[in-house]
C-alpha cells in the first residue's frame, strides 16, 4: 500500500506544512517511512500534459490480499491522514461557518487541497499521480479526516478526486489521455460525478436521465441533483440509462445543452450544490465510460456510498469530540452535566456507534482493495452511516440543548450535514 516517494515528496514540500506548523511531524514520518524500506526514487517529476497519447489504459496496482486482521494504517496512510487531519483542523474547521453561509468553498482552501494531492488520489503513476497503489482505504482515511474539519468543504475537495478515481478505474487510454493527467496537475479541473436525481424513492439503478445513440455519439437528457461545485465545474461524469441500463458518460461543461441552477440544501452547503439540466447534450462516442459495463456502474455506486460513509464518520467524530468537551464544562445543578448518566450514557453511545460506523466502512474499503466482493459490506456501512450517523448528529445538538440549536456552536451544521450521508449517491467515489 505504498503511496510512494512522490506523495512523500509532495507532502514534505508543501508550504502549507509550515503555515500550519506540522513541518517536524511530516519529516519524522518521511524518515520512518523511508527507514522502513522504500523503493528507490524513480521519476519524481510530475507531468502536466492534458492531451497525452497512451499506449493503453493505466491503472493503479490492485488486489494485494492480506493474511492478517490488522487495524494499523501503513506509514504512508498514517502520514497522509495526519497531514490532511491537521489541514482540516487548522484550515477547514475555522472556515466552515462562512463557507456554509456562502454556499461556496474558498478558492484558497481548494488550492491547498490540491497541494495536498487530494484530487490525484486515483490517478496512476504513469499519469503523474502520486499513489502507486489503488487504495479505497487511503481515500477513506483522507475523506474521513477532511470531514472531521467540515463535511461541506470536504465534499467540494473530494468531488474532483471522485471523477479522477472513476477515470483511473474505468477510463480507456483515450479518455485517460484526455482528462486524467489534469487531475495530477497544478490546476485540476473542478469536476463531479453525478448520479442523483431530484425525486423521492430515487434508485441509482433506475435512472430517468437517458442517453440515446445518435450517429457516432450520444444525446443525453435529464436532471441531476445536488451536484457539488456545479457552478464552476468543468467536467462531469453523468449517470444515464442507455438502452435501459445505467451507464457513465463523460460530459464537459461546455458541451452545450447543460443548464445549471443553484440547489442549496439542508447541509453540505459549502460544496456549492447545484442542479444540472441536460437538454439534448450531444457527446462523441468516446465519452461512454467502461463501454457501458453494468459491473463498472455498480462498483461506482458502491464506492460512492463508501465515500459518504467516510465523511459521515469524520463528521460524527467531530461531533463526539465536541460534545465530550462541552458536557464536562457545562454545569447545571452545581456540577458538570457529564456527571449525570442521562448525559454520560448518551456520550458513551455516540462513541460506540461511531466506532461501529468506522469499522464497518473500513472493512468494506479494505475488501475493495483486496479484490474481494464488498457489496454487502458497503450496504451495511451505509445503513449505519445513515442511522447511527444521524443519531450522533441529533444527540450532538441535544447535548448542547438550546445552545446547540444556535450558530454559536458547529453542532447544528453537523446535524444538517450528517443527514446527507444516507441519501447522497455518487460524487465521493473512493
Amino acid at each position, binding site marked *: 500500500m505504498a503511496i510512494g516517494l512522490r506523495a512523500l515528496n509532495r507532502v514534505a514540500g508543501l508550504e502549507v506544512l509550515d503555515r500550519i506548523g506540522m513541518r517536524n511531524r511530516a519529516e519524522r514520518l518521511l524518515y520512518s517511512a523511508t527507514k522502513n524500506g522504500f523503493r528507490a526514487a524513480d521519476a519524481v517529476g510530475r507531468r502536466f500534459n492534458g492531451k497525452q497519447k497512451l499506449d493503453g489504459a493505466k491503472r493503479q496496482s490492485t488486489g494485494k490480499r492480506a493474511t492478517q*486482521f490488522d487495524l494499523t494504517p501503513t506509514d504512508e496512510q498514517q502520514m497522509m491522514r495526519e497531514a490532511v487531519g491537521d489541514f482540516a483542523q487548522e484550515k477547514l474547521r475555522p472556515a466552515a461557518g462562512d463557507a456554509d453561509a456562502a454556499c461556496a468553498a474558498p478558492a484558497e482552501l481548494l488550492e491547498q487541497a490540491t497541494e495536498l494531492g487530494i484530487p490525484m488520489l486515483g490517478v496512476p503513476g504513469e499519469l503523474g499521480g502520486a499513489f502507486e497503489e489503488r487504495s479505497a482505504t487511503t481515500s477513506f482515511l483522507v475523506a474521513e479526516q477532511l470531514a472531521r474539519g467540515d463535511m461541506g468543504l470536504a465534499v467540494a475537495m473530494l468531488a474532483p478526486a471522485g471523477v479522477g478515481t472513476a477515470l483511473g478505474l474505468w477510463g480507456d487510454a483515450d479518455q485517460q489521455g484526455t482528462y486524467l493527467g489534469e487531475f495530477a496537475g497544478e490546476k485540476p479541473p473542478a469536476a463531479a460525478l453525478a448520479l442523483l436525481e431530484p425525486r423521492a424513492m430515487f434508485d441509482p439503478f433506475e435512472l430517468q436521465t437517458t442517453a440515446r445513440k445518435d450517429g457516432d455519439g450520444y444525446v443525453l437528457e435529464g436532471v441531476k441533483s445536488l451536484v457539488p461545485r456545479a457552478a464552476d465545474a468543468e467536467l462531469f461524469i453523468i449517470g444515464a440509462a442507455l438502452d435501459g441500463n445505467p451507464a457513465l458518460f463523460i460530459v464537459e461543461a461546455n458541451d452545450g445543452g447543460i443548464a445549471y441552477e443553484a440547489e442549496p440544501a439542508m447541509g453540505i452547503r459549502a460544496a456549492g450544490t447545484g442542479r444540472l439540466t441536460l437538454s439534448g447534450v450531444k457527446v462523441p462516442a468516446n465519452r461512454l465510460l467502461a463501454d457501458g459495463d453494468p459491473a463498472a456502474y455498480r462498483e461506482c455506486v458502491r464506492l460512492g456510498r463508501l465515500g459518504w460513509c467516510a465523511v459521515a464518520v469524520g463528521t460524527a467524530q467531530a461531533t463526539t469530540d465536541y460534545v465530550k468537551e462541552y458536557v464536562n464544562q457545562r454545569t447545571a445543578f452545581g456540577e458538570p452535566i457529564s456527571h449525570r448518566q442521562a448525559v454520560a450514557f448518551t456520550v458513551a453511545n455516540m462513541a460506540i456507534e461511531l466506532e461501529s460506523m468506522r*469499522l*464497518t466502512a473500513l472493512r468494506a474499503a479494505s475488501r475493495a482493495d483486496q479484490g*474481494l466482493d464488498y457489496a454487502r459490506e458497503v450496504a451495511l*456501512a451505509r445503513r449505519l452511516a445513515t442511522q447511527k450517523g444521524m443519531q450522533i448528529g441529533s444527540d450532538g445538538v441535544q447535548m448542547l440543548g438550546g445552545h446547540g440549536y444556535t450558530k454559536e456552536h458547529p453542532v447544528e451544521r453537523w446535524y444538517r450535514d450528517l443527514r446527507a450521508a444516507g441519501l447522497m449517491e455518487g460524487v465521493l467515489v473512493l
Partner: protein
Amino acid sequence: MISLETPKKFQVLVDQAHQVAQEILRANSRKYDLAEHTYPKELDMLAALIDGMNDGGSTGGAGAAGVRGSDDGDEGNKNGSNMATVLGVIEMCWGDVGLLLTMPRQGLGNSAIASVANDEQLKRFEGKWAAMAITEPEAGSDSAAIRTTAVLDEETGEYVLNGEKIFVTSGDRADLIVVWATLDPSKGRAAIKSFVVERDNPGLKLDRLEHKLGIKASDTANFVLQDCRVPKENLLGSPEIDTKKSFAGAMKTFDNTRPLVAGMAVGVARAAIERTRELLAEAGVEVDYDVPAHKQSAAAAELLELEADYEAALLLTLQAAWMADNKKPNSLHASYAKAKAGRSATDICLRCVALCGAVGYGEDELLEKWARDAKILDIFEGTQQIQLLIIARQLLGLTSAELK
C-alpha cells in the same frame, strides 16, 4: 495493511469449530433447553477434543485459557490467542450459547486462573474445570460491595471463607470454584481477592440450581460458604491489600473475557439472522445489497438493519481481541464490544422472531430459544448499563464518585 478479514491462519480453527457447533451443539440445542439441569453428556467427548486443539498449539489456544496470551516476541502485527479464542467462541455460540457455557474445563474460572494465577497454581489446577463465583444476593454489578469474608487462620495456614454466592455458572458441575471474597470489608475493593475452592470442600454447600429464561443447558448454582477452609496457596494474585493495584488485578480478567461474551452474542445473532434469511427467502423475500433499502420490502430493509448491527458487533469484538493480542490497552474497546454486541444480539434475535411470525415464536424452530438465550449476554460479565458507565468514565475522564 488494514484488513478486517478472518486471519488466514485461523480459518481451519473456524471451520473446525463450526463443524462442532453444527454437529454437536446445534444437534442438542432443543434437547437440553427442554431438559434443564440435565448434564449434557455429549460434551465430555467434545471437551477432550478442545483440550487437544489447545494443546496442539497451532490455533494459539482457542479455549477459555486463551485469554492468558502468548509472548512470542514477534515484531509487527499479531493475531494471537485472544483472536483465536473469540473466533472459536463465535462459531460455538452460533451452535448453542448454553452448551458452550457448560463446556467442561472452559469455565470463566479457567479464564480467571489463566489470567492471574502464578506458574505453580497454573500447574496445580491444570486440567480442572473452574467456575467463577462473584455475585452475591446484595452485590450484583457492584462487585466491590461483596460481603463474603476470607480470614486467615495463621495456625493452619488456611483462609476461612464465609458468605453466600449466587449465579455461579456450572457451579455444580465444575471441579473448582473461583470465589471472590474480602480480606477486610472496611477496606473496599482493594481487599477483594479471589480464592480457588475445590467443589468437594465440605464448607461449600449447594443451595439450589436456578430455573432460567434461557441458556438452560448451562446450570446456574447458588452456594453457601460456611467456614469453608482453603489453603492459602489457593489465593490468586497477591495477598497484600494494595489500594492501587489489587482490584485492578481482579478486574483485569474482565478486559479479556468481555470480548468473549461479546463473541457469544455475535454468534447467536448470526444464527438468528441466517435462519431468518432462509425463512424469509422461502416466503419470497430476499435482500439486495445494491438496491436502496427504501425500494425493498420492509422485511428486507429490517433484515439489512439487523445485519448492520451484527456486523458492527462482530468487528468491535474482533478489534478488542486484536488489541489484546497486540498489547494495546483495550478496556474501553472491550466495553464497546460488550455493550454493542449484548444489546444488538438481544434486539436482533427478538426482531427475527417477530419477522418470522408464528414459526419464529414456536418451538419447532430455534429462533425463540435464541431470543431467550441472547438476553443473558447483555447482563452477565457486566450489564449494558455497567458497560456504559465504564465507557463514559473513560471518555469523559470521570471517577466513579463523579459519575455514579
